[in-house]
């Protein structure tokens, strides 16, 4: 039995179907039907691209903004920490008994306590001091947003009540009201904040 013809034939023909026709057709249909999502859910401000709705970005240590979760991504060229580097999504990979992990968390707690008037440790939710799986998590818990209000209020001179309303307005419910958790998209919240500050 000669194998050459079926082996080569099936490889090439299935490639035309699955390696070429399928992805190109999917791009075509997606671009036609759901262009905003298919193009990466871009967010614009005054016509300028400021990010993607699904990708977190780095606001730390800028004291004017709400901060996202710690990010462990690195620079591709230097290998040094570069938070929210979307070109090199990565977790920290630190194990549960690694002393470095505990040191990182303690340091982040200390920074929050130092910069936030009146904050106590037992108000800080874990997501704000433990780094995410992708380094690009766009969200924080509602509690993580609320405890940042005193710091943002002090630095922006906006009232705490106003910022509270801003956070409440930014809360995303769980999908279909039942899957996942209520959360705040940090870019969306900061965009509202930016508009309040700059009109």
């Amino acid at each position, binding site marked *: 039995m000669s194998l050459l013809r079926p082996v080569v*034939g099936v490889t090439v023909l299935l490639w035309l179907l699955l390696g070429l026709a399928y992805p190109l057709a999917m791009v075509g249909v997606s671009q036609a039907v759901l262009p905003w999502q298919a193009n990466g859910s871009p967010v614009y401000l005054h016509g300028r691209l400021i990010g993607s709705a699904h990708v977190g970005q780095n606001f730390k240590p800028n004291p004017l903004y709400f901060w996202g979760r710690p990010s462990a991504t690195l620079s591709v060229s230097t290998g040094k920490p570069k938070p929210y580097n979307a070109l090199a999504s990565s*977790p920290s990979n630190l194990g549960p008994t690694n002393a470095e992990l505990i040191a990182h968390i303690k340091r982040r707690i200390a920074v929050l306590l130092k910069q936030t008037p009146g904050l106590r440790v037992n108000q800080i939710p874990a997501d704000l001091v433990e780094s995410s799986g992708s380094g690009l998590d766009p969200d924080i818990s509602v509690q993580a947003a609320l405890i940042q209000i005193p710091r943002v209020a002090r630095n922006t001179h906006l009232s705490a009540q106003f910022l509270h309303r801003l956070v409440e307005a930014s809360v995303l419910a769980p999908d279909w009201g039942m899957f996942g958790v209520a959360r705040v998209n940090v870019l969306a919240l900061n965009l509202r904040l930016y508009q309040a500050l700059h009109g």
Partner: protein
Amino acid sequence: MSISTMLTWTVVLAAFLLLIKPMGNYIAKVFTFQPTILDKPFTALENGIFRVIGVSRASNMTARQYGVALLATNLLFAVLGYAALRLQGALPFNPQHLGAVNPQLAFNTAASFATNTNWQAYSGENTMSYFSQFGVLSYLQFVTPATGGAAGIAFVRAMSGRKLGNFFVDLTLMCTRLLLPLAVIVTLILVGQGVPETLGGYLHAHTLAGQTQTIPRGPIASWESIEHLGQNGGGYTNANSANPLENPSALSNIVEILSMGLLPVGFFYAFGAMTGKRRLAWTLTSVAGGFFLIMLALTYFPEAAGNPIINSLGLATHGNMVGKELRFGMGGTSMFETSTMAFTTGSVASAHDSFLPLSSLSFFIGMFLNMVFGGKGVGLLNMLMFVIITIFLMGLMVGRTPEFLGKKIETKEVTLASIAFLLHPFLILVGTALAVYTPAGMQGVFNPGPHGLSEIIYGFASGAANNGSAFGGLGAALPFYEIAIGIVTIIGRYASIMAMLLIGQSLLAKKSLPETSGTMHTDTPLFGGILFGSIIVLNALTFFPIMALGPIAEQYLMLAHHLF
């Protein structure tokens, strides 16, 4: 447990329970050439393919021919994959102008994608062009699971007294009748949730905080769907399904979970439908389902309770969020990780290296057993291997000649099944020992203490089980691991498939015995219980010692607040 967790689990488990029968019946119809609703759009296309390659739909091969055709085709996949990655710089659809992939990485990647392992020693978003992603790697994510599925189907045909079938026909049908139609649907759902699907280049954003951010894009949704439907698990980006570009919402998370489980559970039922032993299929499904639930509980509860060392710092919440994404919730995350380890997909929605020791034990169970549904076809083969060993053990105990589906289980079958069973721990334990024994192996360890040993065991278990996920800290890009895990991957994949095909061939050649009052029944809860117990005993005897040195030792040290 939160309401969201309970609802997520209920919806996923209910969906699997509702889909297993229709999916299984559909698979059985396709591969016994009965009419289905997809005949109209695909028959002409398939006939065209069969005409060009010169095979007929109804032709048959021997186990040897089937195996040789499978190996030859897979070899060509790997060679072409290697060549295309090496030529990346000269090929089209490369808006980021990425150059050739280096030879070692191209070998490791081609081997790992050709074996449906999808172990990745690179970050897709800064290594692979759009063409390499969709034209090479995404293509392999269709045809390699189709290969595994074909092998499973050939074995089931043999068990049901049919001839083995033709590898090229099975490979084609697996793509046209199962993977492609499902991939189209899942792709569009994922785009709706926010997964990009474009050939436009990366986005350059100027952030509110005055920085710049480059956001990778590409045909990600069409990749993501087949990544999961084929239990491939190769991430488009380094963070895989933890990356919001690959898995943007709790809903997309559920869609990806269902995608990876649909075909493996369907294959369990298809086995029953094709052999006419539906009750046996439910027995096997219950055994695998039992292990799935144990893994789910073992993944969830330690993570929800959190790391005692961190809890002692006095934060407001206790769940372990290290390496996890917020949007899925603890319930969604634990369901995803359980599924990816049970179905041997190997995509991750969080960082496995940062899971607590007991939850990581659940990941190891998935890879060691390799039959908690497993990859489609292959997982069923592993389950039937345990069935044959269990029947043999029962036969020894009651002093009767063991039979399965009316065929005597004799020396040849038991020998082959034992080889298939022992090969798995051999590859994992010898690989780990070699790594621990050599400086080259120890160099790749990232986390200190027992966790470092777990990283090595995980790497080899992942290769041998063709899972492909990793304790991400391990230096997978080191030459030692690229080569050692590459080899383990290839042996783990093809040796067990070959052994099972030979068992199928051997059983097919035997006379069918009529059922008597002395026949041991395999479709009863009693047999299910014995099978369940045998699987635990066989695997505990094999793997408990190394687990005691890794996750179990770490658990006790963590409870004592010991840091490394």
